[in-house]
């Protein structure tokens, strides 16, 4: 009896309704956090003593870069769950994650490049972090490419799940190999984000932005998940009731 809630999580109609109910909560929470975080980061936080106002792009760059990895991990976990226990809804979650994660990765790359232009004077520097982000973008593109190359949904689900799991094993290897590759060629990066000395007035908006982007991901994921469920269950009878409601 205690497990009925767990079994319901595998049922598309239940998840479809749940996602519909939860989406506004996450969306509004995310909007409030992002507005608050941006105000804190762009207005309240003091200018950096070295970078002036340039560092403020960090309030978008760091959360999106963080999300790009988190979304990939979420995708791989969902894919693995779908692969192991054959839960259809997990595959739908994994499929919904990929475009969102790729977008976050792209935004992180663009903001990193803009920041790099102000710091290094060039739009692209083979900085280890930027390079791993770029490879991560390729991993997302490969995942989406494999999905779109297969007509049969179940095969696409399971094949892309294998790829996501292989990818997640490789992400740390790629990250550290790029880190070592770069440290062999040139000195450490100019950017040091993990400064433990960041004052609270700078750090708190960053944490608020991190939460804001995480809830934004949740809201986007729920919307995409509903679209994905509609697409997958389009022949099911409950869809007509759900849509005409």
């Amino acid at each position, binding site marked *: 009896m205690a497990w009925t809630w767990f079994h319901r999580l595998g049922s598309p109609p239940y998840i479809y309704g749940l996602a519909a109910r939860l989406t506004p909560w996450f969306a509004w929470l995310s909007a409030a956090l992002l507005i608050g975080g941006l105000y804190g980061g762009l207005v309240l936080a003091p200018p950096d003593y070295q970078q002036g106002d340039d560092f403020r792009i960090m309030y978008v760059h760091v959360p999106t870069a963080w999300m790009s990895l988190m979304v990939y991990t979420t995708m791989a976990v969902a894919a693995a769950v779908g*692969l192991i226990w054959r839960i259809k809804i997990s595959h739908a979650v994994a499929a919904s994650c990929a475009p969102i994660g790729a977008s976050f990765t792209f935004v992180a790359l663009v903001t990193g490049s803009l920041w790099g232009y102000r710091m290094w004077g060039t739009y692209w520097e083979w900085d280890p972090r930027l390079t791993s982000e770029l*490879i991560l973008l*390729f*991993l997302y*593109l*490969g995942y989406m*490419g*494999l999905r779109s*190359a*297969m007509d049969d949904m*179940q*095969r696409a689900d*399971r*094949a892309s799940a*294998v*790829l996501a*799991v*292989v*990818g997640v*094993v*490789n992400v740390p*290897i*790629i990250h550290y*190999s*790029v880190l*070592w*590759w770069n440290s*062999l060629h040139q000195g450490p990066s100019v950017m040091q984000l993990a400064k433990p000395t960041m004052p609270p007035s700078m750090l708190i908006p960053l944490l608020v932005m991190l939460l804001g982007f995480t809830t934004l991901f949740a809201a986007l994921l729920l919307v995409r998940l509903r679209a994905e469920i509609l697409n997958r269950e389009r022949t099911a009878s409950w869809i007509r009731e759900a849509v005409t409601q």
Partner: protein
Amino acid sequence: MNTSVLEASSTGTSALEAARLMLARDIRLALRKRGQLVQPLAFFAIVTTLFPLGISPELSRLRDVAPGVLWVAALLSSLLALEFLFRDDAQDGTLEQHVLSGQSLTWLLFAKTVAHWLLTGLPLAVMAPLAALSLGVPAAALSGIVVSVAIGSVALSLIGSIGAALTLGVKRSGALLSLLTLPLSMPVLIFGARATDLAIKGAGFAPPLYLLGALAVLGITLAPLAAAAAVRISLE
């Protein structure tokens, strides 16, 4: 021509014996089509020729880019060679028979990948010194290059086997295969090029070689499992 592997299922042959039969079968079949085996090698030679034409004929400048040129060419030609790994067997249904044979598919695919490495990776390692010499690499560095390409191509074959298995059912899979395989191969490129670079400079190149070896061992451990899962999915 593949009866030996198929019979192995009914006679209760061990997984290792089945893998050995598979290895022998794949090598025998490949040696009947020698022209196909030469293609990736010719591709490797052509790509390394393109760089001096594109950059500069000065050996001193070529020597600086030689590690990158050699490894990018090796990566691309191993990608090209992946076509031969499963394609023929998938087309004539042999691969399905292997899945149904009752033998461990993981071992069978591992044997296939080993055969593939013996037929494409190892010749690449033997040929790499020739290409290296043409790029102005000193003769003392050649042994290091052979060893690093030999170890690195093990990892490349194994990573590639996953991508090739995933794209089995996809028509015109070349571009997709490279999109899947190349990002995963980048660590191999980094450590391989680093080992080659150190060998050219006459320094000790053991550390990146160990890392390359670690990648190869990780690939041997995990890649056949993933490839077997992927083949099962592709043939469903």
